[in-house]
Structures are given as C-alpha cells and as structure tokens.
C-alpha cells in the first residue's frame, strides 16, 4: 500500500473536521506532538543508560557473559513476543478508532492491557526465580544493571496502563472519543515496546 493510498483511505474514514487531508498525509503527527517530545526525552535517557551499560560491560566481558548464562532467555523471548503482540493490538486499535469502529477498538485496547499484565506476570516469575537462586540487585554489576533496567522498564509499563485506561475511557463513551488522545496513548505504549526491544538485545542476547 502506498502512502497516497493510505491517505485516501484515511480521508474516506476520517470525520470532516479531522486534520488528515489527502494531500498532507506526509505531514501528520500521530497524537499530540507533545507526546513525541516526551518520547524523545525518554529515548535519550534510556540511550544514556544503554551506553553506560556498554561502557561497563566491555571492562569485564567475562563476568557479564557468565552472568548472562543464568538468565532465562526463553522467558525473555516470550516477553518480547508478548509486548510485540500487545503493540500490534494497540496499532490496530488506533486504526479501528480512526475508522470509527469503537467497539472493536475498545476490545483491542483491552487485549493490549491483558498482554501488558501477562508481561508483568512473567517478569515477576523471572525475578522471583532469580532471587530464589540468590541472584540479587547487588550480586554483581551485571545483575545490578539487569534489575535496574528491567525494573525501570516495568515502571514504564505500569505508567503505560494509565495511558491504556485513558484510551479505553475515551473509546467507551460517544461523548469523548478523541482520536488524538487515543493516538497519544498508543504512542506511549509503543515506546515501552521499542525500549524493551533494546533492553532484551542488550541484556539477554549480545555476547
């Protein structure tokens, strides 16, 4: 599908006062631009964490490799797939809401939430298994980074639930249904997803 096609489609389904016009599809920022400013700041903060992690990793790669063997990579992959699917539901939710199929969109945001809860559930299982094996925040440098990065990420997931609830609340009643707010919430949720993709690569799979 080309961009022009997408724009035409958007125009067909969009209400008359919608900001999308066939011609300016290439100039359309999804959601509030304010959220994108936030995403940029968060991306920079996390980038600094990742660079600091890498700087420490190269000083003692043997320790990091040895510690990585103790991680449950299967659970890491599962969680990555869960977040990807949740993101997919959220992206579809934005589409459905744009096409004014609000009931479908509402169901999709609920699925997103369920998958988010599943992600946190697996994370808790992972943490409790590691703690029971004696691997804690202060065990060594790698596990400090591991617990720190995953915990800060889970904190973002928890904040993400607030955004998902806002989106669900918007979709629920015909009195609200602001497409802009739904897109803003979706943007936050996808940020949580792509940050996890980097965390997954850096903690679980690089050698």
């Amino acid at each position, binding site marked *: 599908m080309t961009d022009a096609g997408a724009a035409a489609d958007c125009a067909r389904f969009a209400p008359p006062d919608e900001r999308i016009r066939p011609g300016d599809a290439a100039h359309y920022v999804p959601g*509030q631009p304010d959220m994108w*400013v*936030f995403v940029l700041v968060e991306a920079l*903060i996390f980038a600094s964490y990742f660079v*600091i992690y890498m700087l420490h990793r190269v000083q003692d790669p043997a320790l990091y490799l040895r510690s990585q063997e103790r991680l449950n990579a299967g659970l890491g992959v599962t969680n990555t797939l869960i977040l990807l699917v949740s993101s997919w539901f959220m992206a579809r939710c934005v589409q459905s809401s744009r096409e004014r199929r609000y009931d479908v969109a509402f169901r999709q945001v609920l699925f997103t939430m369920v998958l988010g809860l599943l992600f946190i559930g697996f994370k808790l299982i992972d943490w409790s298994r590691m703690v029971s094996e004696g691997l804690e925040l202060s065990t060594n440098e790698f596990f*400090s980074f591991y617990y*720190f990065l995953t915990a*800060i990420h889970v*904190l973002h997931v928890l904040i993400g639930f607030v955004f998902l609830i806002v989106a669900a609340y918007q979709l629920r009643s015909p009195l609200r249904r602001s497409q802009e707010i739904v897109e803003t919430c979706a943007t936050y949720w996808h940020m949580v997803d792509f940050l996890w993709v980097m965390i997954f690569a850096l903690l679980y799979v690089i050698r």
Partner: protein
Amino acid sequence: MRAVAVQAAPVLPSGLFERLAWHWRYNPKLEFWIAWYSMVFFYNLFGVVFVGMTRVMPPPQPWWDTPRVVQWFNDNHNGLLVGFGIIFLVSGLTAACNALIGYSMRRMSVSRAFAYSYIAIYSVSALPGMLLTAIALTVGAMRPERDPELIYWLYDMGFMCFVGTMGIFLIGTLVWMIAILIDKNRVLPKWFGYLNICNLITEFVVATSWVFKKGVFAWNGAIAFWVDTAVFAVYTVAFIYLLRKMIKREDFGDGPLPA
C-alpha cells in the same frame, strides 16, 4: 471606599533606577515578577553554592575511607560554612517558586486542591532537598578535631539526605503533572506535563543510592547522579521558562485594584 482613583501610568522612563521605580509603582504584574526573579535568583545561587563553594555537586566518593572524608571536610572548611550560611539565609525563597507553581495550578481548570496540596507538600521540600544536608555538613565542618567516625557519619547523613530523599518531590511532581495534563485552559503545555513523568522517574532511580556505595548507582554514580541531575536541570530550566511565558501572557490591564 477602598478603591484608589485610577492613575494613568506615565511612560517608562530611561535609566535603571527610574525604570525600577516605575515598575514598582505601575507594573501590574509586579507580584509575579518579584516571585519569578526570586526563583531565578535562588536557583542561580543554589548552583553557585553547591557547585562552586561547598563542592557538594558533583558529590565526592561514597567509598572513601574515614581519613579521606576528614580531609575532604578540611579542604572545604570555609566553602562549606560560608556557602551553607548563604543557603540558610535564602532558603525561604523556595516559597516564591512554590507560590508561582501553585498559582499556575489555580489558573488551570482543576480543583483548588491541586494548588493547595502542592504548596503544602513543597513548603517542607527545602528540608530534605537541601537544609538537612547543609546542617549535617556544616556540623561536620565546624569542628575539624571531632572524632573522625562521627565526621564520617555526618558525611553520610549529608549526602544521603541530599540524594536519597525522594517522596516529597515524587508526589509533588505527580500532583503538578496531573493538573497540567487534565487542564483545559492550556496554562502550561502538555509536553511539560509529560516531562514531569521523566522527573518523577528520576526519584525512583536515585533509590539505588541506598544500596550501592560504588559504581553507577551510588550517590555520585553516572546513572543515580549524573543522568538524574541532567533531567532535573532540563526540567527546572523548562519550568522557569514556561512560568515566565505564563506571566507574560496574563492580561491584567492596568485598571483599579480590587478592593
């Protein structure tokens, strides 16, 4: 009975003192500007004292042994005592900053409860934010002949109070964030509302300094101190600028004062 006869403001004169006198007499936004300049003055002074005079920022090492800590106090003896004396003197200016922020919430389409809880929370913020630190380090520097173990304890108290006190700023920031995001009067932009999330998360990040004495999560670590301080600096500069914009936008005219 109480209303003062309306006086037309004369044109702004030239010359610094004449201008200041004119503003004092006729500027309808004088109350705002007093609070705003107090805030700017305070944050600048805070930077000068904490970075330049007392050497508390960037913080010294948490893993130093006792003699090294005593030496740190001896090296900075006068800087600590004079610097924190200044901080003791001007600590009340934080109230001006909080008042301005509280006012921004009163202009929003939110309950007064937001402004009141912010002012209530932040009226004690100076205590964990800087005064406990200043008291502990002042007492540490005051008597170089004190038992080194006690100086060491005061050192820990000073820096952990500085870096590791979180709740007031966490909940205060949360209150302001919610107010900005649900506000319909567009008093402050939404991106700043979201930026509050970043500031709020730094308060979670610094909790690691209670666990680590070395490395990136210690009280002078790259993550627990440097990244957090960078976020806080961006946040502070942003709100100082946005509050200025808010004041400029206020339209009071120059009519008679309310009785």
